[in-house]
């Protein structure tokens, strides 16, 4: 599968308009200079040969070198990956917890005026979450909470400049600040996480809420729940079983969200100057930097494949029918 992905990625990146040699040479460069840069980058070779060389390097774990920053892509990924993982994982966990809790609550309290108002509120929220672009929401949050109210730090990256990064242990600032007991840094890192995480959570929690509500409602209306009630089983036990029966479609949505978050992070990182993989990929697109772009898309594909693998495993865990 990954081999297929690598062919598609390689081909699609090469189909993009723009020759990096022209940009690297600058407008004043001679044709000879451009030719020399093409040779340096291997762009003068036929595409199949370029792909073969790419695959050979990939097999050795060599993702190539950025033609823009001149650094090995694998080094740059290592530098930038922790920032993105921290942002995505935190957003993911909060979005899923919030989504499942609110969705279950809406399904459980489906009658009564409060339930109706809450349901309408979340319907409107769902529409907004689907319609608002992430970069716009990020900018609005910055304008309100940083520029107008001054409650949160500005979009200057993961940590305040005068505080600086925590001593390196894992590369994840939150974890490192905790491990080293650097409370000033921890406070700063947490403050900087609020707006980008809120932006992503706002956008991705909506489908989890919708799916959880629909799935739990369906589950609560199923025969086994009616039967359990008539048998006098406690409501808490019924709810637990109903939620478990509702989980498979929720797991599917949640799993897809992680891949979606990786895409969403591209613009959110750009707005918050996060310095992670998303920002890196935007830069690669702008300057036609092939190697980082290939690496980013390949990484996204790997994340998706792992996600689907995890989904299959979870399916087997929550749905006994799969194991039959």
């Amino acid at each position, binding site marked *: 599968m990954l081999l297929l992905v690598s062919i598609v990625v390689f081909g699609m990146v090469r189909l993009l*308009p*723009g*020759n*990096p040699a*022209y*940009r690297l*040479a*600058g*407008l*004043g*460069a*001679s044709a*000879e*200079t451009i030719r*020399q840069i093409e040779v340096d980058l291997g762009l003068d070779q036929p595409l199949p040969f370029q792909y073969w060389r790419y695959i050979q390097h990939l097999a050795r774990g060599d993702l190539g070198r950025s033609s823009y*920053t001149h*650094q090995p892509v694998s*080094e*740059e990924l*290592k*530098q930038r990956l*922790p920032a993105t993982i921290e942002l995505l994982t935190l957003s993911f966990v909060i979005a899923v917890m919030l989504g499942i809790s609110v969705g279950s609550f809406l399904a459980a309290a489906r009658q009564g005026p409060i339930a109706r108002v809450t349901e309408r509120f979340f319907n409107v929220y769902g529409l907004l979450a689907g319609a608002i672009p992430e970069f716009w929401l990020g*900018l609005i949050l*910055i304008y309100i909470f*940083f*520029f107008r109210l001054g409650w949160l*730090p*500005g*979009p*200057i*990256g993961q940590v305040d*400049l*005068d*505080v*600086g*990064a925590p*001593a*390196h*242990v*894992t*590369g994840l600032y939150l974890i*490192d600040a905790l*491990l*080293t*007991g*650097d409370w000033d840094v921890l406070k700063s890192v947490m403050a900087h996480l609020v707006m980008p995480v809120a932006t992503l959570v706002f956008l991705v929690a909506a489908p989890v809420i919708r799916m959880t509500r629909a799935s739990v409602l369906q589950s609560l209306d199923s025969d086994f729940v009616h039967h359990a009630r008539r048998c006098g089983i406690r409501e808490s036990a019924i709810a637990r079983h109903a939620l478990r029966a509702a989980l498979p479609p929720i797991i599917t949505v949640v799993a897809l969200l992680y891949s979606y978050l990786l895409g969403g992070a591209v613009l959110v990182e*750009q*707005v*918050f*100057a996060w*310095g*992670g993989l998303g*920002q*890196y990929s*935007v*830069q690669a*697109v*702008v*300057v*036609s930097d092939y190697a980082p772009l290939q690496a980013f898309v390949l990484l996204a594909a790997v994340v998706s494949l792992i996600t689907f693998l995890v989904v299959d495993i979870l399916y087997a865990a929550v749905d006994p029918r799969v194991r039959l």
Partner: protein
Amino acid sequence: MVDKDSSTSEANTAALPARRLVLKMAAGAALAAGGRKMLLGEAQAQKAKLKTLVIASPSTPAGLDRDKDLTQISQRVVKNVYEQLYEYPLVKLPNGLMGVDPNGFGSRFNSMLAASAPQISTDGRVYTINLRKGVKSRYGNELTTDDIRYSWQRSFGIKVCGGGFVLPLSGCTGMDNLEIIDKYTYRISLKEDNYLLSRTLENECGPPVLDSTEVRKHDNSDDPLAKQWVSLHDAGFGPYQVESWTPGQEITLRGRDDYWGGKPKIDRVVFKEIPSSADRLALLIAGQVDIADELLPREVATAAAQKGVKVDFWPMATGFDALIHNAKIAPHGDRRVREALNLAIPHDQIIEKIYFGRATRWDGVIPPAHEGSISIPRKTDLEKAKSLIEEAGAKGTTLELYYGTGSPVHEEISVALQTAYSKVGINLELKKLPDSVFVERLYKKELPLAIYRDAAFQPDAGYALGLWYPSRSFFAFGQMAMSTSDADKANQAKIDELIVKGTKTINDADRNQVWKDLQLLIDQTQIFGYLPLPGMTVVRRDNIIGAACYNDNFYRVYDMDKLTT
């Protein structure tokens, strides 16, 4: 070597097996309980004592090689790290700001890495230069003529900036123009007359003076000319050195205590990557950064109205925006169409509505910051433009105008042009291209009409004319030589001839006459549309003082200071 502790250790850590990582985490936790906090506290206190300038920048540098890394941010950083032999002296300009003297370029230089002004032979073909003694790089190696020799060799090997066009334009085509006399003295000999060398000794795009002792250690078959190494490390003799660099986040420079000109007033400079210009503005207004680079004109106007923020504007700079007509694509081969489109440019509207007054009309064919430029007034004349379009039979024609995504202001100018051209009978379709595609297609002369921003860093008419207008130029006139119009071809031949003649004319008065004739001829061809000049702008907190405009349109941190508020 550049201290890239953080990135290196991150990379090493990522390669560690899980078991070692766990041990490292445990060690980290143990440190928290021990003396680490005290050490961190001391380090932070030490850092807090340093005078730090924070610059919000659209990106971190692509690389630090002055010979080939040409992005704006790369140049902005390396100009504080590398130094040239000479520099134009700064003067107080009429607007009260510091800048290079627009009326006294000539060959008046401040000696920087050179010990004194060049000794020029009476025939103007031999330049003898003495290097300043005792100048050291961050690696402790003294500047000698061996550094000059290596820098030239490398520059001719790379053939992009110094060896690609600055030296050849100045009459130096190879190493045989260079002769080393002794450890501190060298000679440049020209085979034929070329006055430009007396100017380009200052040129920021000339061969950067590298610490050859250090760079040679990395110049090997794996990395010929140490291209990779020089891109990732600093090896200059300037006032700052790179302290740390995390691509995509920030690059920090540290003032050198042993800089020959004295320790910089600002100890540390942090170029912080903030991709969104709206964010850069917000951070500046909130006082979290000291300077916001590359704001849009509208944002500059907003900043100017804020308390605690100052906007410095130098109208006399070498940067420009030009409308480039491709004479080999109809109807741009018709001079009447080109003139009509140029006459319809709404100069005043662009200056007032798009630049909010921070731009000036480009009266000439090269910006007035270039010594030897002449004034050719520009005006908007829609009636004449309309009649020329009708005369050329182009009424109702649809034209395509191209610009790059990296220049939002060009989009606004394009919209203004679209409106103006509709009044003279031309429909304009706006085509926005990703920057890399835009540059490639412009280079290949595929774009019929395009807006492009650039600058000729040497404030000299001959340099600018020789860069933009000869037929070998990648720019507009390369296309005019291919025009279907015989008049265009004849004009191009005459232009080529005048450029060579002017460059070989040593006498100032005679040469200026050649440049005047040449500029008038270029104006007749109408191959460029001369859009308002954006000048140079620095948007800063009001406690940051001393910014000056150099001929390359970049400020130097060494001139600046940060007052305590």
